[in-house]
């Protein structure tokens, strides 16, 4: 508890709190004094010990390692300045991994979120077996990515019995080389990602939709807005923060793709064309297959900066769009009813 000593020094002596103490539920009083004052720290201490050691410290340590020549199973790290970064920015594979992360991210995120929005809209209706449909949404999310990827790998197999090609054959389409083609492989990966996350995002949207007051819809209906216009002018504006939240989550998720390309593409190299080479796979390959931990840490740091930029960009967009504070829902509603009545 020594770490908390400074916090008590600035306060009045123990056991004699000022009479005008702020309302505080875990309050100090003459009798309970010390125990109550320490208690919050005791309660957060185990969390912050573990979180500090295995959550925060590694982040700082990554930065340090990224400036070292540090080999897996090798000797002590040796400071090399920006060398790992100059290597990284001179590496064509790095630019390929950035590009593949972006393209796979786009072709998985955009259709996924649009479908989730539509599904949430449907799930929001009153219906029988509602619980079944909602739980069916999370089944893919509850499945491990390992299992999902292995199943999809057999569905997309190039062998004569590959289910996807057989189905395409029935439609008169020639077999597609799902694993070795540049775009086809990316589409296959995006399919797995979409399957895994669409229902999850639909439930998030559903929760957002249910927090939109019902009378906004009634007012829009009175003003003659049909279902589609209600969706456009009431649902979408009401969901704006939720949509931004899912975009942030999905874009960050896109930089973290590993299991799908690793198992579907059969290894850490990222495929003959580099078609699977996304950032995390590249980091893993450099760090744990090639054994250059310093260089892999540099990739991690660059990815971290990208993630932070994405979060800030999204937060900035969110602020731009909801600049007027106060009672946003009511304002939006008046705007939408005005449009609807025109």
């Amino acid at each position, binding site marked *: 508890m020594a770490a908390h000593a400074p916090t008590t020094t600035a306060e009045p002596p123990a056991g004699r709190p000022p009479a005008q103490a702020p309302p505080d539920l875990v309050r100090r009083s003459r009798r309970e004094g010390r125990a109550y004052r320490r208690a919050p720290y005791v309660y957060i201490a185990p969390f912050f010990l573990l*979180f500090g050691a*295995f959550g925060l410290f590694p982040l700082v340590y*990554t930065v340090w390692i990224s400036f070292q020549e540090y080999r897996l199973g090798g000797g002590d790290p040796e400071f090399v300045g920006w060398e790992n970064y100059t290597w990284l920015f001179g590496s064509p594979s790095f630019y390929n991994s950035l590009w593949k992360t972006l393209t796979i991210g786009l072709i998985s995120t955009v259709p996924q979120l649009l479908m989730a929005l539509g599904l949430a809209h449907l799930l929001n209706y009153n219906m029988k077996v509602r619980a079944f449909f*909602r739980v069916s949404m999370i*089944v893919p999310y509850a499945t491990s990515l*390992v299992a999902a990827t292995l199943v999809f790998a057999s569905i997309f197999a190039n062998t004569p019995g590959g289910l996807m090609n057989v189905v395409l054959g029935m439609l008169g389409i020639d077999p597609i080389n799902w694993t070795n083609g540049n775009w086809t492989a990316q589409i296959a990966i995006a399919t797995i990602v979409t399957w895994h996350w669409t229902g999850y995002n639909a439930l998030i949207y559903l929760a957002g939709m249910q927090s939109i007051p019902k009378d906004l819809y009634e007012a829009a209906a009175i003003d003659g807005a049909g279902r589609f216009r209600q969706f456009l002018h009431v649902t979408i504006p009401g969901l704006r923060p939720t949509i931004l939240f899912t975009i942030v989550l999905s874009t960050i998720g896109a930089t973290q793709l590993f299991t799908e390309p690793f198992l579907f593409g059969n290894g850490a190299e990222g495929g003959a064309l580099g078609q699977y080479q996304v950032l*995390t796979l590249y980091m893993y390959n450099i760090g744990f297959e090639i054994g250059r931990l310093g260089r892999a840490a540099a990739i991690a740091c660059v990815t971290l900066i990208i993630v932070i930029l994405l979060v800030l960009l999204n937060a900035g967009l969110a602020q731009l769009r909801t600049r007027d504070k106060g009672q946003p829902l009511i304002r939006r509603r008046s705007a939408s009813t005005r449009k609807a009545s025109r």
Partner: protein
Amino acid sequence: MTSSPDADVRLAAPVEGPAEPRRSRRRADDSAGPLTYVILTITALLFLFPFYYSLVAASHTPSDLYDGTPPLFPGPAIFDNMRLALEQADLVAALGRSLVVSLAVTATTVFFCTLAGFAFAKARFRGRNALFGITVATLTIPPTLSIIPLYVVMTRLGLVNNLMSVILPSAVTAFGVFFMRQFISQALPDELVEAARVDGASLNRTVFSIVFPLARPGMAVLGILSFMAAWNDFLWPFIVVRQSPTIQVAVAGIGAGYTPDISVILAGTVLATVPLLVVTAIFGRQIVGGITAGAIKG
């Protein structure tokens, strides 16, 4: 201000009672049409199909799968393939390890995050906002970015291939604290804590006899989500416990042979997935609640 009359209308609406046309329109708008059922059913089938297909593929011999017409119904070979999967990778031991890891992670996450969540929700102390701010700020930082330093740390601690190396980094999560803080601030009335204090209960007593019972639904959701995450985790266990693999690592390993046998691999995935499907079937509603509760405030 154009918005103020609107606000009045909005507040007044429930009181004055719904007018006739509004009511009928609302009823019509709220109930699902046949098309909704059709689309949702197709979606549910698409979401469930990979399971069905893995069962089908896992119950046939490889030659059945490769002869050009994929089987669409389960065959007789499921137990042979499962036996092969169990032999090729020591899946029983792997399932046991995953159970140990997931239960340990669930227990520590729920207990420590509830304590911290309670402190952040109901106590006032110096550094509270700063500490909570740090916790929330790291919510969006993916743990994957820490695998290199964590591996170095685990090597130094001599924990590589020890299950502790998987448990420790997941023992608490920033999300858990955030989630429990939200839950406790809503579920636990201030007056209750105050009353316990006035009655002379120690804080520990308050926590164990008031906070924990009231926070139980939230703790259950956090527990299920933590269990699922720990059970399904792949990259970090793959790096750090390759010699004593968890179930996901072991299943991924079946496919690494020279002639990967799809039916055996899928028999393995069935074994690895069934426990979680059971959890999902039992706790589906809680999982749905957890996903949505975490998102609303995001």
